């Protein structure tokens, strides 16, 4: 009797797997699962969602082409994540503060940066960061944006901006960073309007989601911080939009933070800098995800409704492509950043020592 355990840890652990099904409006077979939610969208809305996804995929394809031509710097491929990225960002307003990670360049453009600025960011030019969008630059340090989102959200609240939130993205690997927890915990402790979006695309470079954590879902990582969280089908743009919109509405009503885990997939490599996914995943593993493609799903719905055609899509893609080619031309025309300017923007007022360096470089640069 004395050896009888006072608590059944295995039962507690098993109970963690009792989670609601991810939210879905359109399933993999393009069937409407939630008719009420579906009916809340007009035909124009549906076409608009499709256009945004076609735009993001065209942006990806063209950027990969530029990358192969040696015309890009760092680029993190987005193919497969169109529903997750566009669905969430379209639910936001211009006054919301975006804290993106490096795979979130399409959302940054959607939020108000130009494609030219995005290309300059990729190449590594300061003008790439001087966008009008209310946003930080794509964050390279995974987790940092989660901490900062809590601060931005607190600033928004202290500014009495009633119809604004902070929204930030990380990936499945990003949830393992201590900073991700600190950021969510601070936002929860202060009840500030920060929306934490985890785009679970299955891999942190080569490390699969299952190796990141024993937690059955990443959405559960918010629970310890007292934050409501939900899983959503990240290949269903209608569900992603609807959930992000609900989160935003909840927060601007005066409530604290929310976390959303989108279940999506990175079709391509981690980055254009030599990552080869064939080293860590098989075709058998990836094919089921390609079958869930977010564009295929919505395209079928639209075609059934007579709202979309192949010609229409081809024409759009051509238009988008032309705009990206225009954008890279603009980027090509921007002269390289000067060392003297870099020194000038390190402090508000350069120190005497730096002034000497500035003079030295300006003399060289004027030659």
């Amino acid at each position, binding site marked *: 009797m004395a050896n009888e355990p006072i608590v059944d840890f295995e039962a507690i652990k098993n109970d963690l797997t009792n989670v609601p099904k991810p939210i879905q409006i359109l399933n993999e077979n393009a069937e409407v699962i939630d008719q009420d939610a579906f009916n809340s969208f007009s035909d124009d809305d549906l076409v608009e969602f499709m256009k945004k996804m076609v735009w993001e995929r065209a942006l990806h394809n063209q950027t990969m082409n530029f990358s192969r031509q040696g015309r890009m710097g760092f680029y993190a491929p987005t193919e497969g994540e169109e529903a997750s990225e566009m669905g969430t960002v379209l639910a936001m307003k211009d006054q919301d503060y975006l804290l993106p990670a490096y795979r979130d360049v399409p959302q940054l453009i959607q939020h108000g940066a130009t494609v030219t600025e995005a290309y300059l960011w990729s190449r590594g030019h300061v003008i790439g960061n001087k966008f009008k969008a209310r946003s930080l630059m794509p964050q390279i340090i995974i987790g940092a944006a*989660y*901490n900062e989102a809590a601060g931005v959200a607190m600033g928004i609240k202290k500014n009495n901006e009633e119809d604004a939130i902070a929204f930030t993205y990380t990936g499945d690997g990003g949830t393992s960073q*201590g900073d991700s927890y600190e*950021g969510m915990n601070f936002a929860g402790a202060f009840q500030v309007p920060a929306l934490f979006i985890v785009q679970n695309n299955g891999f942190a470079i080569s490390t699969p989601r299952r190796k990141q954590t024993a937690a059955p879902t990443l959405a559960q990582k918010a629970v310890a911080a007292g934050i409501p969280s939900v899983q959503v089908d990240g290949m269903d743009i209608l569900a992603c939009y609807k959930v992000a919109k609900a989160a935003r509405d909840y927060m601007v009503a005066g409530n604290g933070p929310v976390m959303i885990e989108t279940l999506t997939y990175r079709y391509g490599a981690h980055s254009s800098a030599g990552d080869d996914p064939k080293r860590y995943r098989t075709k058998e593993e990836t094919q089921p995800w390609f079958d869930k493609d977010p564009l295929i799903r919505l395209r079928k719905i639209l075609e059934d409704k007579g709202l979309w055609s192949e010609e229409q899509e081809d024409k759009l893609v051509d238009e988008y492509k032309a705009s990206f080619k225009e954008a890279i031309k603009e980027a090509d025309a921007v002269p390289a950043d000067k060392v003297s300017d870099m020194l000038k923007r390190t402090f508000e007022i350069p120190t005497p*020592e730096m002034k000497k360096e500035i003079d030295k470089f300006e003399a060289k640069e004027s030659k």
Partner: protein
Amino acid sequence: MAKKTYIQAITDALDIVLEDDPKTLIFGEDVGKNGGVFRTTQGLQEKYGEDRVFDTPLAESGILGLATGLGLTGWRPIPEIQFMGFSFEAVDQIVGQEARMRFRFDGQKTSPVTIRTPYGGGTHTAEMHADNLESYFTGTPGLRVVMPSNPYDAKGLLISSVENNDPVLFMENLKLYRSMKDDIPDGKYTVPLDKANVVREGNDITIVAYGAEVNEAKKVADKLADKNISVEVIDLRTVSPIDTETIFKSIEKTHKVVIVQEAQKIAGVGAQVASAIAEGAVLSLDAPVGRVAAPNSVYPFAQSEDYWIPGADEIEEKVNEVLNY
């Protein structure tokens, strides 16, 4: 004007910046109701309310991430890291984020954050409470590191730091907190950043020091004055960037220099000062640069601190060595 401790001078400065600028915010672990573990923020929450002075969860990276985000939305954060040893938890926010903000955005976005944190040996603390960690941060472009050596400077430099639009790491010396009193003018005054201070004028030799070691150097100057040796003492006040102009001017007069730091020899700003002198003023010297620093061991456990930290005796010995070269 009243006699005030280093802590009281800092409290004064915080009171003034909270009063002056409604965008200033003080936050950190235990800074609210408790007034900070050293009572540096005593009474401020009561006076300015919980919206301006507030406690945070216990996480340094979170505290400084909060500061970065608040800075981006128009606020002027003055976060406290309870002990500098804990700043390692927040290095990305200091070095990777705040220090780079102006550079990244060409001034379109900035980080007007002043991080206050106590450091320094001699009070027998637990591990990671006393180390002189300035050198981990002085190599960071875009970040100022300020280390006041006395209560008067502490107040004036802190006000300047908060008013500055770039991030400042403001290091408060633990041992000086209550061991030193100055006449502190009531109300606002500033002490300029990036400017060293000649605290003793002299002709025979220059001592360059910062933080608590300035006071040890002054003891040596007083003692040697009795022997008709005239020592000039320079207090760096801002240790990054370094005011080399004041140092060079002094060396051109004295032709001899001893650089003093409380940090280990491999871990302070003394090497940077020596290198600046080697590059910019070596021909003014008629003896090798003298250096006084702590031994290159890990910072000692409390019991051994007193004989590990370099004090006036070590400085005097080195000054005599350089004088007699």
